[in-house]
């Protein structure tokens, strides 16, 4: 059941229609940022569960963060249930109503990212063949406005990222989703304090 996981306020036809309009007209590219998206109990359970997962530090020119392996191999019952839920017919139909049709029900990338003090993710577009929508379930519990870790969306000029035009502070139980394209330039600003910006993120693929 959708309402087992998703906050019922997002399930009415009126709300879905509103989200569809907001998504399609968003600037600098199609995105949505929805607070309190999951049922609070589920969000808290997921938070507790991902804290038990093993994270691996990764660093290169583009980013510095810690990441889990893909959750398809997670031993957590709850995480597996969440993965099955995301790929269920009912859930995909719900997402397709406001994001767009054609999400592949057989393929999803799902993992957790953790950014700690000094971690960052510089500008990129996420574009890899088949990727349709990028999503982030934010589960950071105590990040404040000035602590960094913001999801920043950039506009483009002549095919190149230009400047940050939208900045989204991470909040617990916030769902961010955007359509992947050659202009979906985004980045995560450096975490500036001794706190964890933690999320479950991944990509839906196109059929």
């Amino acid at each position, binding site marked *: 059941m959708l309402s087992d996981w998703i906050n019922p306020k997002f399930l009415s036809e009126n709300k879905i229609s509103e989200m569809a309009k907001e998504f399609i007209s968003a600037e600098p590219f199609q995105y949505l940022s929805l607070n309190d998206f999951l049922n609070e109990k589920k969000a808290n359970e997921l938070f507790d569960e991902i804290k038990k997962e093993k994270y691996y530090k990764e660093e290169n*020119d583009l980013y510095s963060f810690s990441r889990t392996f893909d959750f398809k191999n997670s031993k957590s019952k709850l995480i597996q249930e969440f993965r099955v839920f995301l790929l269920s017919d009912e859930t995909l139909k719900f997402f397709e109503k406001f994001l767009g049709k054609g999400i592949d029900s057989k393929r999803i990338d799902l993992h957790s990212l953790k950014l700690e003090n*000094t971690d960052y993710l510089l500008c990129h577009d996420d574009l890899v063949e088949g990727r349709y929508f990028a999503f982030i379930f934010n589960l950071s519990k105590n990040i404040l406005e000035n602590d960094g870790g913001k999801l920043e969306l950039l506009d483009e000029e002549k095919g190149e*990222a230009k400047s940050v035009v939208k900045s989204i502070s991470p909040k617990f139980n916030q769902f961010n989703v955007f359509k992947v394209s050659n202009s979906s330039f985004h980045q995560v600003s450096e975490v500036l304090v001794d706190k964890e910006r933690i999320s479950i993120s991944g990509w839906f693929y196109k059929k």
Partner: protein
Amino acid sequence: MKSKEENLDLKINRIYLNKEVLIEMQEVFEEEAFIQLNNFFENDMKEIKDIILKEKFILDYKPQFHKFEKFEIKNCYKPEIIKLYEFFKSKKFLEFLEGILQFELNIKSINLSKYSHGDFTLLNDKMKREDIIEVFYDLSSKFEDNMGGTLTYLTKEEEIYYFQASFNTLTIFFKPSEVMKYLKYINNRVLNSEKSKDGKKMKDRSILRFEIEIDCEEF
């Protein structure tokens, strides 16, 4: 203590002008394709650094490629900075490099850049793919590796070299065409990391670097 006028006459550390040391430098470069010369100038470079830091730099931000500040020499009237630029363009400096590299060289470009908190350069497909000699002269305070700012050279397979900024140090590196480089994002550990002269006020650290590109078709 040197007078202001004396400090304008830039002098390479006499150690590096010694013939035996020159042979050692030639051998190091031949073997490593890389050499770093600490305490490069004998002058009071701290004073020159402070003069440069008071000048206006221009932000160069291309989110997919780089973020740093660059200095426009054409708008500069400070004799200390002009002298430093002229030195790096001079026959004397070129002959010094030729002595180590044992080839005729041709300077292509000289830039003065400043990399501070939040600055970076990224690997990208638009990078120049040519054999080149890169020479860096750093006026930066020592950076710790965990602050970012390391300049890393790598091929598709592996990292081959990286170095960190160090005050009054000249670095010479032969960069083959297949080698790329990036400057690691400078994080918030550089903030308030340096004491000012009076020991009270804290200053933010930045990399202040002359970047000199040298043609090496015959290298």
